[in-house]
């Protein structure tokens, strides 16, 4: 059974040979090619090659056609990305500094013509070709509700959300939603099998469920209504999402939920029930210091909480570059060993 067949079975509510394992290794690809992280992200070919090597090395079930969140800011005019030698790139130029910048923000007519997207598109096409129908190629977008955080800074975005004029907030969110919709469509057109929809600012770490319903939900609905929920994974983006899952299912029809390591795995499974797919996500920050035994125990515990009766996948959040290779091997070996639907 190959990875696509394995994942398809889970999506259909059937039981495959083992729990599918999602590996979100990003900057590690640079290391595989002996490149700096900045060089690595300069060409889609490099990222594709790095991702193919990583999947081959660790044996997980997906291929990642994704660069970094700041790409979306670049597509909207960000002129400076700050590259690190040991971590993800950061946005170094916030394109919205004042209210006028929101009025002036223009969403590109044709995303596919943007240089950053061209590289991303190259990467996805190579991955599709090399995957040979065995591995799904995924990509990702920042939700319309979270996108302003990388355009204006999270503090300014919270100020506008909570204290700012509603009309201005609406204007910005409409533009961000238009962009999000265009990007999802463009990624699909390039060949991405699935798209992670990341909504960190809409997580329970930022807002209560009531505030989420009041502020974030309508924008998720707008984004997803325009593209359809097929192949969309609701990704936590770094915050907890269990309290929001039921509401999102009811309003959007998204069926796959990639929870936060600090969310309760068994609780997520219970909330989703037979309406979709839940996940167990390892706390990958702890992988930096954990010993083999700790990793095996944690994976075993996650699988025990979620794998029973199927409808469950296992994965990582976004693996920090500093995790020792040995521990990455332990993680995926443990996932294959304990990833059975008992």
């Amino acid at each position, binding site marked *: 059974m190959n990875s696509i067949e394995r994942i398809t079975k889970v999506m259909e509510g059937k039981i495959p040979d083992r729990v599918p394992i999602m590996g979100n290794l990003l900057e590690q690809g640079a290391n595989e090619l002996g490149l700096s992280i900045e060089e690595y992200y300069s060409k889609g070919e490099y990222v594709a090659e790095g991702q193919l090597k990583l999947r081959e090395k660790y044996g997980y079930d997906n291929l990642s056609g994704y660069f970094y969140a700041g790409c979306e800011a670049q597509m909207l005019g960000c002129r400076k990305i700050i590259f690190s030698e*040991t*971590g*993800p790139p950061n946005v170094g130029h916030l394109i919205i500094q004042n209210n006028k910048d929101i009025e002036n923000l223009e969403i590109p007519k044709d995303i596919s013509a943007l240089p950053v997207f061209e590289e991303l598109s190259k990467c996805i096409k190579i991955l599709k070709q090399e995957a040979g129908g065995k591995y799904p190629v995924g990509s990702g977008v920042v939700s319309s509700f979270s996108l302003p955080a990388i355009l204006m800074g999270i503090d300014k975005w919270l100020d506008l959300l*909570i204290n700012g004029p509603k009309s201005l907030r609406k204007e910005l969110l409409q533009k961000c939603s238009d962009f999000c919709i265009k990007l999802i469509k463009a990624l699909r057109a390039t060949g991405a099998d699935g798209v992670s929809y990341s909504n960190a600012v809409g997580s*329970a770490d930022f807002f209560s469920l009531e505030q989420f319903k009041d502020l974030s939900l309508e924008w998720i609905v707008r984004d997803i209504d325009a593209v359809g929920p097929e192949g969309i994974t609701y990704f936590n983006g770094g915050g907890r999402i269990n309290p929001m899952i039921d509401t999102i299912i009811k309003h959007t029809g998204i069926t796959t939920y990639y929870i936060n*390591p600090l969310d309760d795995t068994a609780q997520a499974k219970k909330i989703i029930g037979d309406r979709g797919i839940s996940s167990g996500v390892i706390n990958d*920050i702890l992988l*930096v210091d954990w010993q083999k035994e700790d990793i095996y125990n944690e994976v075993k515990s996650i699988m025990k909480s979620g794998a029973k009766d199927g409808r469950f996948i296992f994965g990582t959040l976004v693996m920090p*570059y500093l995790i020792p290779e040995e521990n990455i091997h332990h993680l995926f070996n443990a996932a294959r060993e304990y990833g059975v639907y008992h």
Partner: protein
Amino acid sequence: MIEQFKRGYLEAILDTNRNVAIETIESSIDAGHSPETVIFEILIPAMEELAEIIRVGPDATLSQLYIASQISAEVTDRLIPLFTKKTDVEGKIIIGTAYEDFHGLGKKIVKGCLKSKMIEVIDLGLSVAAEKFVDEAIKQNAQIIGISSMMLHTARGGNGAFKVREILNKNGLEGRIRLVVGGAPYRFHPLLYKEVGADAWADNGITAANVITDLIRETQIS
């Protein structure tokens, strides 16, 4: 009456309703309460109560903490110059984000909470070099250096808290200046603060303000 204002202020913060929070503080001043009373009997006790709510109950959200810290800082900045007697600050802290870290929300929340606890905050901004943290702490005679990191590589990397600890120890400053860290990686890895050589960490801005107050008092005793 004071209790009523305190309750109204706390409820407004929990509702992330900035306007009502500010109106409540203004009403308390209109009712004849002195700036000292507003700070010490409304604002600080409300923040203490919020800390207790966070400690025993479900987590407060970042939006609640953000609003609480921003309003508290604003009210404190406005009222302290109106005090009838000059009030000594509890202590002084140098804060900033770790080198190569450009995420400032956590720092901003902590800064607001610290101000409301009468702690002088010197904010060095984003992506601060280790040497600068220590140089400023010496220059300003600060008891605490606070470093915020959003990402693991800036929390654990060689140019952040690790290096600050190294410089403090090399110069025999470890007893005089304490090192506090915070940010997302520390929430996922509660023992990470020890790995990077910090004296303490905190899960949120309000707890951070309490932890820092305790450390300042410790340095003053020692």
